[in-house]
């Protein structure tokens, strides 16, 4: 039995919030550098250069790379043989978000109710997705999800007869409708199959994959390559100024689904693809 204290979880989550918002992950930096080298549009290249400069500045000075430091979406993979001591897992995570957003001078962007719009003042509550897995490890990933790209995300319950062409059309159309609002070059998380809620969740989880990997099986990998090409044909380009690089990557996750269903979720992620993780082993 592995034991982790609530205080330890709080301290680590606070650190992950600050790191996610100030340091762009190395795979994202590498993808942005590659995009800058490949981009044919001079304006597009300039935008990418400035975004890389912005990321360097944020990391060097430990300041947020973007003013939208997001809703904290926390993924937990908890081993069946892990116990949290001296507190509750959810409370410990929420306290970590509260501390991290305060100490890191991060923006408090959460309102109590979608209708009354009153700010909670501490960026809590986070969204916590917990998965129970075998073993003695505890893994926590904090994704700071900005609203510019989140707001342009879509889900559609398609009919099986609509087929792959309709899926591709829906994904491409989602990126086109978003345009510069989603802060391209975007990362596109696609969930295909599952139930209504599972489809959205796997689309979001797809955004956590390393940008240079390819799909979990050949069907997904093929779809990812074709979608990336289709999206980069739109001409939207970095921040909508025109160019070849509208998406850095497309990540497709699939799940078995009902014989009558074909849910498709497209979760857009801006170029500031921010997440940080820690594993207790």
């Amino acid at each position, binding site marked *: 039995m592995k034991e982790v204290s609530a205080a330890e979880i709080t301290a680590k989550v606070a650190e992950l919030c600050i790191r996610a918002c100030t340091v762009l992950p190395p795979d994202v930096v590498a993808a942005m550098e590659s995009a800058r080298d490949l981009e044919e*549009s*001079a*304006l597009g290249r*300039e*935008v990418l250069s*400035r*975004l890389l*400069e*912005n990321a360097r*500045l*944020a990391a060097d*000075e430990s*300041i*947020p*790379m*973007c*003013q*939208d*430091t997001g809703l904290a979406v926390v993924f937990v993979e908890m081993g069946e043989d892990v116990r949290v001591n001296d507190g509750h897992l959810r409370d410990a995570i929420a306290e970590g978000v509260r501390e991290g957003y305060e100490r890191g*001078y*991060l*923006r*408090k*962007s959460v309102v109590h109710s979608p209708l009354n*719009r009153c*700010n909670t*003042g501490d960026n809590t509550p986070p969204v916590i997705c917990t998965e129970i897995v075998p073993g003695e490890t505890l893994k926590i990933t904090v994704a700071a999800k900005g*609203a*510019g790209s989140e*707001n342009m995300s879509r889900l559609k319950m398609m009919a099986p007869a609509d087929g792959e062409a309709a899926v591709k059309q829906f994904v491409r159309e989602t990126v086109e409708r*978003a*345009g*510069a*609002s*989603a*802060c391209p070059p975007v990362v596109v998380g696609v969930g295909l199959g599952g139930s209504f809620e599972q489809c959205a969740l796997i689309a979001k989880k797809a955004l956590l994959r390393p940008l240079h990997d390819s799909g979990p099986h050949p069907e997904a990998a093929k779809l990812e390559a074709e979608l990336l090409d289709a999206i980069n*044909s*739109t*001409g*939207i*380009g970095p*921040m*909508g*100024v*025109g*160019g*070849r690089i509208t998406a850095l990557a497309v990540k497709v996750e699939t799940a078995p689904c009902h014989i009558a269903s074909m849910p498709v979720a497209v979760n857009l992620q*801006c*170029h*500031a693809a921010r997440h940080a993780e820690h594993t207790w082993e």
Partner: protein
Amino acid sequence: MSVPEPSETPVSLTTPLSDEDVLALRAGQPVLITGAVYTARDAAHQRMFEALGRGEELPFDVRGEVIYYVGPTPTPPGHVIGAAGPTSAGRMDRYTPPLLKRGMKGMIGKGPRSEEVREALKRHKAVYFGGLGGAGALLARQITAVEMIAYEDLGTEAIRRLEVEQFPAVVINDCHGGDAYAEARARWQRV
């Protein structure tokens, strides 16, 4: 009308903007803005809109002014302001025509505007600039002073007066009907 070549040098603009300033701008033109701009986003726009509905004055005179759609992060010690890049402008579309009617001359944001806003830009001679989305750390360096103006209880969404120096942006929608996003796509899309 075509998008100016990327090599085109930025035009320097000083706020407040005049009709002549606006008439000279074309979609795709890079600009460097110097002077005062006012921050406002969703919640501040809703309050201004409601104030106008009640026949009240706005918290600042919008004539000639530029509104920057931004909600900065808290200011760390030793800085003028936290990260301060543009937010999506489309959410402010429904509140925008009444402000343009009262003489507002410019907005800085990111992403497309509604047809109503684009029409109002033509009618009232005003311009929509696109800022560099997601470059909040870098753009904060162009802000030299911050003053609270109204709705302080809204926190990050309060109206602040920012002094900016050579703040980079691109004209997205001009007052002649030009649309830089549409023109850029027409140039770069592959069919």
